């Protein structure tokens, strides 16, 4: 079994485990203030990190390329209230066109 399959299996177990735990575990065990606070901070920190790596990293190097203007376009569209799918398509098109022209 390849490493990717192991990763998929771990992700399935982890993500489903959390869902069923939430519906099953007594509320008082999980509503401790620190736990709630950390759970609200995790998506913010992780998504921030994911964006930076996705936009700036090329292996173990930091590079500035067509992904940076693409994410800037995405940010402007989100700020203007454009829905998810057209926003993602516009970001991809920006990067694709810049690579075509340069």
């Amino acid at each position, binding site marked *: 079994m390849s490493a990717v399959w192991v990763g*998929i299996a771990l*992700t399935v177990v982890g*993500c489903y485990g959390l869902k069923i735990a*939430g519906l099953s575990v007594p509320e008082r065990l999980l509503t401790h203030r620190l736990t709630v606070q950390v759970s609200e901070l995790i998506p*913010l920190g992780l998504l921030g990190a994911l964006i930076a*790596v996705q936009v700036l990293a090329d292996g173990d190097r930091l590079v500035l390329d067509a992904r940076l203007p693409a994410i800037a376009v995405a940010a402007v569209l989100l700020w203007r209230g454009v829905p998810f*799918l057209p926003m993602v398509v516009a970001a991809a098109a920006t990067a694709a066109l810049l690579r075509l022209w340069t």
Partner: protein
Amino acid sequence: MRWPGTGRLDASDRSVVSDSLGVAVAVGAYGVSFGAISTASGLTVLQTCLLSLLVFTGGSQFAFIGVVAAGGNPATGAVTATLLGVRNMFYGITLAPLLRLSGWRRWAAAQVVIDESTAMAVTRTSSRQARLGFFVTGIGVFVLWNLFTLLGAIAGESLGDPRAYGLDAAVGAAFLGLVWPRLTSALARAVALAGAAAAAGLVPVTSAGLPIVLGGGVAVLLGLALGRRPPGGDA
């Protein structure tokens, strides 16, 4: 039209159903971007479709393929994906008293505990309408997300070099779209920026995948230090 356990639908029930179906269509459709990006990143159609069927929480799915596409260890991808899925546990805690499920129904319902089904349930005034919003949204998103994942996966496989289509940039944009509604306070924005800065700083000195987990961890610690009160948003 009848809904199991809720009896006949009146006018306000029907508006819950139509709102929920609207959300399901809008969210399900972007399964196409997940499918395309996943196979273009090197996963097979089967692996891509299994992620949507069995993981079924968009942020975690994008996180997993993001780490794998960057050359990271898939186990690191799984850790990142699971950490992003922690919020679903807290949704479950909120939903449990509204849904009051036991046995196999609880195990089945758990799979559709996601951002959208929770949002369409907790805003209702009666627990009957909360259940209606939860199930119509959850099942609707599940069906469409998986259907569109398959379509995107097949399209992505025949694309060739994903960079030529800007699909690498699309992943970054997808993450930005997921975090955007959460950036409702100065603390939330500071934590997201700290995560980005820490991860970028770690890229040259750690192996692929680790900057995400470590950067996210640094940001969470900073958030705890900065804020006594939780940040805005419904994380």
